[in-house]
């Protein structure tokens, strides 16, 4: 079981969700986060004092998948959330030792 964590642009969320739904991904968990990276921050003006806002809103998507669908999910996310502009985000992949579905107590593959 792998945990895929993708940091994407907020307005790409719908597209990613749609893409994953079309594959056999049955669930995902979303968090609103703020990102700091190569992408330049925004300037905000309060009573004309300019502030450089370094932290930009991003969406973190966490999806647990079976090992065999890992690559296709990564590809799908990359494809739909790419704009080519700095700030598109990252995908992190890590190993999960175990997964449990609370409702049934099922574990591993059955739980996703």
């Amino acid at each position, binding site marked *: 079981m792998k945990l895929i964590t993708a940091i994407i642009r907020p307005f790409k969320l719908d597209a990613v969700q749609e893409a994953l739904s079309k594959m056999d991904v049955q669930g995902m968990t979303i968090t609103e986060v703020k990102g700091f990276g190569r992408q330049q921050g925004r300037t905000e003006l309060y*009573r*004309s004092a300019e*502030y450089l806002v370094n932290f930009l809103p991003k969406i973190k998507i966490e999806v647990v998948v079976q090992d065999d669908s890992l690559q296709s999910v990564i590809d799908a996310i990359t494809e739909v959330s790419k704009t080519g502009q700095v700030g598109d985000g990252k995908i992190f992949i890590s190993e999960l030792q175990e997964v449990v579905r609370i409702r049934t107590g099922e574990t591993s593959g059955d739980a996703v």
Partner: protein
Amino acid sequence: MLGLLGVSLATPSLAAEVSAGDTAWMLTSTALVLMMCLPGLALLYGGMVRSKNLLSVGMQCFAVASLVMLMWFVIGYSLALSGSGVFVGGLDHFLLAGITGDAVNGSIPAALFVCFQMTFAVITPLLFLGSLVERIRFSTLLMLTASWSVLVYAPICFWVWGGGWLGSLGILDFAGGAVVHINAGIAGLVAAIMLGRREGYPNKLMPPNNLTLSLAGAALLWVGWFGFNAGSSVAADGSAAMAMLLTLLAPAAGALAWMFMEWRSKGKPTPLGIVSGVIAGLVAVTPAAGSVSPVGAVVIGTVAGLACYWASVILKPRFGYDDSLDVFGVHGVGGIVGALLTGVFAATYLGGTGFGDGVDSMLAQVGVQSLGIVAVIVYSGIVTALLFWISGRVCGGLRADAEQEVEGLDTAYHGERAYNL
């Protein structure tokens, strides 16, 4: 206007007759000015601080307002608007003695005049609060404002409206450019300098937590300002009507002036900017609302919008003091601009209604206006500094502890959090 009525207002008579129409409008005006304070100003200021201090601003507004109302009841009204002195009023109306249901003052009940003027006494210290937010010690603030309302506001009010020396010289201060705005602006500036900057200012981003509150608050200020300005006629007449018209035009001009200026020089017209322009225009037309023409009001509003923009955006950062919500930049500077230009546009040949009693040229009027400005700046500046210093000694300091400031005054002082969404 009030200035002219000064002496007669000081001694409510039982004989005169009450005008139901004038009374209706003054009842309304009083409600409108309270609405400027609560919720108007509380929202305007609350929206501009960080969320960890949002409730503290509301708390301060309610507590200071309540305290000042009681001070006014005990002695403030009497000192400000009765007696026959030159520098301060008398004690005839201690505990509002003599203010019975059938006492009359001009064409309205005496009790109503007490109410209307009470709301002015309340809003003035609330205004200068804006320079002290996010770090002032709560108990010190209470002591400062309670004493300030008696020892600073009441005398200055007497000078101009109660029969005192500035009124006698013929100053034009229809609804309180000097009494309220310059006074609050300078008190805020002095206290902010004594208090020092907020932790992290000016390097750290301190974005307003909820500008929608500020926009709503500014809008309520505008609406309430009709009571402030048009109410200062103390009658429902042509003068009140003209004051209302000017109170529409000057802020509209101030808003556009600030907006276009900011658009040009910063690239974007901002919401906080446009409402600052509205308030700048409102402040500046306050002393003028009984004396100038519609064209005059548009000019005054425009100049005030530009001047306050310059004071808040260019001047303040240069000096480095932390007048957190620009009380001096908007109320102080706006008030000064308004007071001076009132001296100019009151001229009948510029469409105004004429100079003050006994003043016969524009130069003389501008002179009297300048004298008033300087007098208020000097007196308010010095006495505010003294009272703040004493309050700090008594209450254990001027500021919240560093830790409380970092935590935020809401939970540190008041045990509640603004948002639990």
